């Protein structure tokens, strides 16, 4: 049903983890593909242009996609299960380790040394699904999303409507725990991370084809990359803008 070839690049042993999760589709890494799409969509909703009014059609289409994924995950039971795991072990450390996980494998591929990698691997071995930690970081980005999406969605809103909207977003995305202030930085690194992916992909700097969200993606030829990287650069400026907003709040 879903796109073939959408792979998460981060780690080995992904196949084993997939099989241990009950009630999930037999296609390997389908869940991760779906998760990746969900993350991507949330990032897109967050990073709408803040200077000019965002494109409502695009926002609606992305939000519908997010809802679709969430509905399917609820039906699958994946959402419930992950939620239970969330409440079980909510800690900022886990977020950090996810982040290191994603960075380190890429940097590993590039031959960089990452401090703290040894501590990370202990965390990782000790725990189960990569899935759940990724969903947790998704949850935290959903948190940031809540703060920003009311701007994206309804420009003429009263304070009351904003509250209502946030409540229903809660219903859509499930109530998630409040993260500690440290998580702000983690939110930022989560967002930053995804954009690093985009940037890497679009500028064709990948060291192996498994990097990037889409397996079928080839490096774009150079005329495109200059445009894309300038898009990325303007998006990074927006990132700064959003950081300002987050920091101020």
């Amino acid at each position: 049903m879903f796109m073939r070839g959408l792979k998460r690049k981060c780690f080995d042993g992904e196949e084993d983890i997939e099989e241990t999760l009950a009630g999930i589709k037999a296609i390997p890494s389908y869940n991760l593909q779906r998760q990746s799409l969900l993350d991507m969509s949330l990032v897109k909703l967050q990073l709408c242009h803040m200077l000019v009014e965002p494109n409502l059609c695009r926002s609606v289409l992305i939000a519908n996609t997010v809802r679709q994924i969430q509905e399917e995950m609820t039906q699958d039971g994946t959402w419930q299960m992950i939620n239970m795991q969330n409440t079980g072990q909510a800690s900022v450390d886990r977020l950090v380790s996810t982040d290191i996980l994603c960075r380190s494998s890429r940097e590993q591929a590039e031959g960089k040394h990452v401090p703290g990698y040894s501590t990370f691997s202990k965390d990782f071995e000790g725990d189960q699904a990569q899935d759940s930690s990724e969903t947790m970081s998704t949850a935290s980005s959903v948190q940031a999303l809540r703060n920003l999406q009311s701007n994206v969605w309804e420009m003429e809103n009263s304070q009351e409507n904003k509250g209502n909207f946030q409540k229903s977003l809660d219903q859509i995305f499930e109530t998630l725990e409040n993260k500690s202030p440290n998580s702000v930085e983690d939110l930022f690194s989560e967002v930053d991370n995804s954009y690093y992916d985009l940037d890497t992909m679009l500028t064709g700097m990948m060291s192996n084809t498994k990097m990037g969200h889409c397996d079928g993606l080839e490096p774009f030829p150079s005329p495109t990359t200059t445009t894309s990287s300038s898009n990325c650069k303007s998006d990074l400026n927006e990132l700064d803008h959003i950081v300002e907003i987050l920091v101020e709040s």
Partner: protein
Amino acid sequence: MEEDVETRKINSSFLRDHSYATEADIISTVEFNHTGELLATGDKGGRVVIFQREQESKNQPHRRGEYNVYSTFQSHEPEFDYLKSLEIEEKINKIRWLPQQNAAYFLLSTNDKTVKLWKVSERDKRPEGYNLKDEDGRLRDPSMITSLRVPVLRPMDLMVEATPRRVFANAHTYHINSISVNSDYETYMSADDLRINLWNFEITNQSFNIVDIKPANMEELTEVITAAEFHPHHCNTFVYSSSKGTIRLCDMRTSALCDRHAKFFEEPEDPSNRSFFSEIISSISDVKFSHSGRYIMTRDYLTVKVWDLNMENRPIETYQVHDYLRSKLCSLYENDCIFDKFECVWNGSDSVIMTGSYNNFFRMFDRNTKRDVTLEASRENSKPRAVLKPRKVCVGGKRRKDEISVDSLDFSKKILHTAWHPSENIIAVAATNNLYIFQDKVN
């Protein structure tokens, strides 16, 4: 069909490097007027450039009426909405011509929030021989005037003036995506993401809201209006398309607020093709009535569809524009290309339809012969006045010579806006900041 002439838009001519393009020069709309004599383009910088077809001369029969710049003016300026702390872009979203009723030309141009009616008129005579002032305009000393004369009109160099005659503002909370002149020539409509307003050309401080799909609770919003157009002959009928791939036909006689459609066009979904991107690629980016008024054409991300107004449950024809992108939807979602809004056009006789694609390709489909062709608008790959060579995208493993593989396509070179002359085989194709005009080859 073979193509012939190429004309380049005159912009940034002082820059020697032709590949340099400022964002303001990106063409955002192209439209022929009702006779085809004029061609208007709008760009991201809020400017309108009008080209005029030169008279055919017997001396040079091979130059069958080329288009030259006729008038350039700044239609919209960037604005700032202080209430929302947001910029309002000056980009021209659409231009629509009014039919000519006197010597002057009238067109509507719109950005995200404001529609303007422009009058474009020529001045080729000026009065000379005033009594109270001399030729430079300085006042003459009345005591020096000894005789009276009647001013006469003398020819002067042609001057084309554009003046804004009406400004229709403050009626849209959301971004205007379409304008359409009614066949009564007295009214027109403007459509944004959630509402459609009906205007009278003479009245700028009021408009009627005829469609409103904004939900009471904005969190329930799942569908937006993407395009709207009046029927070419029936002034009470119009259609609008949505982001869910549906088209609604409304009759303004039934009620003041046309929230209930008279007809609802939707193709049932193919369950085998379902994916998370199904809804996004079904979103209709353009809807156009045929000149006859019997059919409508819609463009979604991968296809162009022709619908018979009398059959609501499915289109009568579906044409694949670039089906090889179906396996790349994830990447195209990531780089936002999946949200590109391509337009589509009919030729004058409604026998051929045309739409754009990536890599500066555009496609034409002959409805009668069922043949289609892919052509490229590019200076590098075709010389001026040369017949355009058909292009082919190869999907499989073996790439023939002259074919382009899907992975080599340049997704930053997209042809979103095209126009077809109302009666002749002349087309205008906007490729980022360049305008190409192609004609049928003369034998």
